[in-house]
């Protein structure tokens, strides 16, 4: 589905469920729906649409839509109203800087970060691939939390 249609679907769905996002009234009044972003799977194939909902410079909520435009989830980040994610956490530049800061001393040739889901669609994160002895090494930055591993995927029975 085209991004324009995703925007249209998001706006119409949001008008129905805005109050269910669990955000306070002062935020809902100034809530903005930003441009939808494609979230890829770990193989970097498009998987679903992430629609950011922002308030001032903060990422406060989201909609997840399938590539066909079906609603997968909608809600908010955090529970308390004073702790929100800075909006620049959605920027590739910030993600690259953070990944380099966390892993740059150990890993060279860090690749461009991609917004992916690490396993299930719910685990949204940035991922870069670095080379270690010609083998890929996976570097993640999950909105403030860096982590890394050698394996591409993890066993689905490990939670």
């Amino acid at each position, binding site marked *: 589905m085209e991004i324009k249609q995703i925007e249209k679907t998001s706006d119409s769905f949001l008008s129905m*469920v805005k109050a*269910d996002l*669990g955000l306070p009234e002062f935020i809902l009044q100034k809530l903005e729906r930003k441009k939808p972003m494609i979230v890829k799977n770990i193989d970097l194939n498009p998987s679903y649409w992430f629609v950011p909902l922002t308030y001032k410079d903060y990422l406060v909520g*989201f909609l997840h839509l*399938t590539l066909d435009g*079906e*609603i*997968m*989830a*909608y*809600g*908010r*980040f*955090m*529970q308390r109203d004073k*702790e929100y*994610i800075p909006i620049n956490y959605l920027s590739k530049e910030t993600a690259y800087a953070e990944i380099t800061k966390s892993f740059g001393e150990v890993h060279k040739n860090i690749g461009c970060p991609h917004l992916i889901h*690490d*396993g*299930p*669609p*719910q*685990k*949204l*994160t940035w991922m870069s691939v670095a080379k270690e002895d010609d083998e890929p090494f996976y570097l*993640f930055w*999950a*909105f*403030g*939390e860096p*982590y890394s591993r050698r394996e591409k995927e*993890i*066993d*689905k*029975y*490990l*939670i």
Partner: protein
Amino acid sequence: MSFIEKNKRERISRQTFQVKGEDAGLAARFHLYSLIASRAKGVEGWEKARIQSKPRIVYDLSGLPLFYDFAVYSGRNRLGNIRTGANKSLGNPIISTQTNPEGWSIDKAVEELNKLVRKDYKGYSISSKRLVCYSYPKLAFMVNLASRERETKQILMDVGDYTVISLEPGPAREMLGQIPYSLLSLISEPKERENIEVYNKVDKNIKEVLVKERNLEPRRYYELKPTERIREIDRSFVFISPVTEKTLDYCCHTGSCHDHACFCLHPQENSVHCARAAAQMMLCYWRYCYSQHEIAQAYGVSDTALTPVGAVVPGLESLTKNCFDATLHWTVNWADCENEIKERRPFMSCVPGHARACAGTKQWNIWVVNTPRPRYLNIYDPWPPNTGAIYWENFNTTNYLCNFSLVRRTTSHI
């Protein structure tokens, strides 16, 4: 020629099956108000409309009344039609709503019928005629003709294209086209019993609402301006909630007890703590306070390792000092999720490779026909680490791995 078995006809022609015109009128009015309240597509402007008080009766080929058709007018413009059942064996009182003017005219059909009789049935005149539904939803005139010599004939003429329909009953399963059959004859006896119950239940609810809402009585309602009508309808129809929602809470959130969350989000402290954070949320709800490190120890894993699914049940039970039964459910179905929340118990909802806590369910009561009913779980997701998220997750589109329930053990006091 008969379109229905004698016994069946006798049974469904009894008074218990007949719908009075007055009750059909109430159902049609209730339906009009519901349509206006729903702001449904195609009924824009129907708040200006008026339902014709005298319906047109459509008969079944069994000879019994089948439908009441209530025309919906705005001034002189016919906006559409609300069709209600005339026999309770049809079930729900509302059969259909047409949101555009009819594509045929009864006057034109009568004119064509007269032409047909003059041309093809010389010496005969029309002794009676009825509007019948001969092959749902097709309508025809069932006409009895009589000659001066007192000979009689019966003909069936479609009111849409004026074709004469053969009066040979069609086989029950070959109902496409213009083959006549009785719609009532197709309803099985168990279905009749089921449908009459449905009818009576809906009819009772309609009457309960309309008795209370005096401003929706036609005399008062039609005197209101369209905007006032919408206001009255919206006020009266608040009880029809578009969603059924249940979330976990401990208290009524009133007075000084309003600014808190009964169920608390605990974000995971690192990238592998999801099963610990989800357990922490469930245990916190039951007032067991453990750190994610302590829960990892109970699972028998280090702080930097993921938790095997099999470690959760013994871990949870040991953390509750065996006061709770933890159970792993490999089959995740909606009824079980709903039941846990109804019983005021959070549960752990796992997708492949990730664990979250669930503290609520919600399902839509209005949805598009032929699509799955929208159902959502209220997920407290410990991801992203140190942030977490609370969201409604589409149950129909999510691939679940398993659930873990946590149920308090009952203690024998004997």
